[in-house]
């Protein structure tokens, strides 16, 4: 009986792994190399076109977004550069080169660094998907432990049931699950941000074109969308100012 249960659990895990591997598409290395070549000889228009072509064909990777961000920045398009870096960080939260270039861009442009709470810092070590996978695995382990213990007590020798092992597995899994939920929420907040794509985008009092301006947002600045009204988004910028911005002036990190 126990062997059958273990086999069932393994089957679930293998199925999830297979789903992950199936979701990945085949990279097109030659296009990527050609884009890099164009960027190296300072043909940024060509490089951007090739990188965008890769992305449109479903070859999404942190490397493509990072290189695209570099090309945009060297081409003078700060907003699109920040967007590329942010998307790269979404896929590889610990990518040091992406973080360094994004910091250099912000420093050069005088853009504010988004504040990160102290408790969020350790949770940003992994990406949202990693946290999701960890949480799913923790949930599976906890539920499997509960199921196996119940089966053992009912159909096995209850006197020999390793209660401590089962309790330990459930406790560890529960902690991992709570951590994963926190990590996914912290990363989700980062992914939900939007990038200002034009310079001096007006932050308006109300969601109308002729409404008064509260302040102006700078290209490449990150804002947090709070709500929407027609073609305007109510956002909060890194300085804590809130107001309405035309949707066309923003680009979401995750569509």
């Amino acid at each position, binding site marked *: 009986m126990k062997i059958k249960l273990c086999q069932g659990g393994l089957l679930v895990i293998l199925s999830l792994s297979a789903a992950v591997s199936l979701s*990945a*598409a085949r990279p097109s290395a030659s296009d990527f190399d050609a884009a890099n070549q164009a960027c190296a000889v300072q043909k940024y228009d060509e490089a951007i076109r090739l990188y965008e072509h890769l992305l449109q064909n479903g*070859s999404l990777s942190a490397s493509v977004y990072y290189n695209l961000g570099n090309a945009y920045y060297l081409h003078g398009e700060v907003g699109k550069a920040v967007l590329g870096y942010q998307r790269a960080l979404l896929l590889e939260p610990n990518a040091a080169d992406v973080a360094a270039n994004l910091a250099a861009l912000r420093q050069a442009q005088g853009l504010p660094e988004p504040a990160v709470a102290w408790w969020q810092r350790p949770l940003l070590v992994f990406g949202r998907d990693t946290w*999701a996978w960890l949480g799913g695995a923790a949930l599976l382990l906890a539920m499997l432990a509960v199921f196996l*213990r119940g089966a053992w007590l009912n159909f096995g020798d209850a006197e020999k049931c390793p209660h401590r092992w089962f309790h330990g597995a459930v406790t560890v899994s529960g902690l991992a699950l709570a951590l994963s939920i926190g990590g996914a929420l912290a990363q989700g907040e980062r992914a939900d941000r939007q990038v200002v794509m034009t310079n001096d985008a007006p932050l308006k009092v109300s969601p109308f074109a002729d409404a008064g301006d509260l302040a102006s947002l700078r290209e490449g600045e990150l804002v947090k969308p709070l709500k929407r009204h027609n073609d305007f988004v109510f956002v909060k910028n890194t300085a804590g100012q809130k107001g309405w911005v035309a949707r066309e002036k923003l680009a979401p990190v995750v*569509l």
Partner: protein
Amino acid sequence: MMNPWQKKIAPLTLALLAPALAALTARAESGVQAVLSQDSVSLGGSATLQVTVRGNSLGEQLAVPQVDGLQFEQAGVARSSNLSASFGGGAGGSMTRENIVQVSFRVVPQREGAFTIPPFKCEIDGKTFATQPLTLKALKVTGVTSSGGLSAAPAASTSLPAAEKNDAVFSRLTGVPEKMYAGQVVAATMQLFVNRAANLSIKLNGAPTLQGGDAFAVAAKSGNIAQREETVNGVPYTVAYLTLTLTALKDGDFELSAQWPLMVVTVKDQPAPGVPESFLNNPFFRGMFRQQVEEPLALGGDKQAVKILPLPADGQPASYGGAIGEFTVSVAAEPAEVRVGDPLTLRMEVRGSGNFDRVGAPVFNGSDGWKTYPASARFDAADTLGLEGAKVFSQALIPQNDQIKTLPAVEFSYFDPLTVKYVTLQPKLPPVAVLPAEPNAAMVRHAAPDAASPDHGPATKNPPLAPLRLEEGTVRADLRPVTRAAWFWAANSGSLLLGLAGFFLLRRYRQTLDADYQSRQRTDRNVALALQALDSALANEDSAAFAEAASRALRERLAGVWGLRAESITTADVRHRLDADGEPALALFEAADAVTYAGRRLSRDEMFNFKQRVVAQLNQLGAAS
């Protein structure tokens, strides 16, 4: 002399017999009085004339005088009577009755001018009474525009005579100075005065406008037209007003005038379209079905002269950016300590009154060693027009070296239209400490090429960047997180179902444990009852009851062990089920049967000894179960 009963009944009787006694009454205060509601009225309006006739016996109907240029319309008639009685002395008292008739007329002037209403005559108690003559002034409805006070001289052909200037409707334009500078913004108020005593019915047919050529930009910030009551030279007025801002656009001599598109509503003495003429003969319907005519009322003949001057070129500072008004500037920096290469935010607040839309950020008077970026601005208005408040500029600065000791000096200039001078402000700068830069990140090892390529973007000086990646890395088809995929939640639901099955199994196991436990509790309870009976029988030295209780105690225990009912266990079952270890229990059963069925009697010592053996056997069986 009246007795008490007569005193009580007399008032009631008098009230009931008043009409009959009217003829017997003594004399009343007779007379006629006429009162006008106002001394003057505008053309299209009306005044109310009320004639009151008092007397005992009123004669023929009131004669209405004829006045050329005035029309009298009877608006209503009210009749009442007062009856008073006095009881005194031996004369037996007297009664007085007074009839009162009040007739209301609506007096409508047909033309401009002063009219005298001759006395109304009426015959009362056989005598003829007459009112005093009354005077009514009818004013022509028109208006003037004046910029100063009401005593301003009338101008142009549309103005009224000075004596009548304030009586009907007129407008004012206030707040506009005689001299302005190009770019200057002022708050102006357009006011429409309507004499409350004129009884005019006026409609505003559209928004008021300010005519002044293309020399001004006009913005009505406050929105709707407001209304207030105001007394001017002792005359009460209703004042409609609209506040707006005027921005002088170009130099030259110009004239401003306010235009109020007004309509005067006049009631004609003829039926409205579709209403029969006969309706006007009925006093009740007369007011409802008369024709109302709306006629435009032209206002605004006067004009306000304004001279717009160019800003003086002499003495204009290099830092001047177009601000006109009166301002102060303060500067704050955050953080106060910054490393080379790290940004610092300079917060510059320009506060005061003036044309804030032309107020730019204070300029740096030399910013060596600092890299500056365009400032962002925010305006906090202190009034609804936006002429007063504070404009806050946030500007990022980055120190380029640690030799810097102070912030770059900033300067703000504005033009003061009152003193006709440029003013330059140099606010005090907060202290700042610049520290050496931290060692750069090891990742930054690739300098970006200079902006030299033909398709290179804007010439921005880019910082060193980490190099391009040469490996494409893990590729995925979608940026959306896995948490948005249905299969992810389906897989987690599978985990939850597995857990639910586990919880179900645990619950089932606990229920099984509970059944055994309850069975053991029941057995222990029955055994305890049997032992109580055993003790009772021992105390009474009742051998039969003792044997029965001992047998029952053993059967209850065995029933718990074997899962059977105690009543169904026989000595044969015990012999059959128990092995060699059960010999003591079997012996006890057989001994009890001997007492029960053979009539053997047990001594007290035997019973005590028997009980000890039974208890030992019960404990042994209980431990085994």
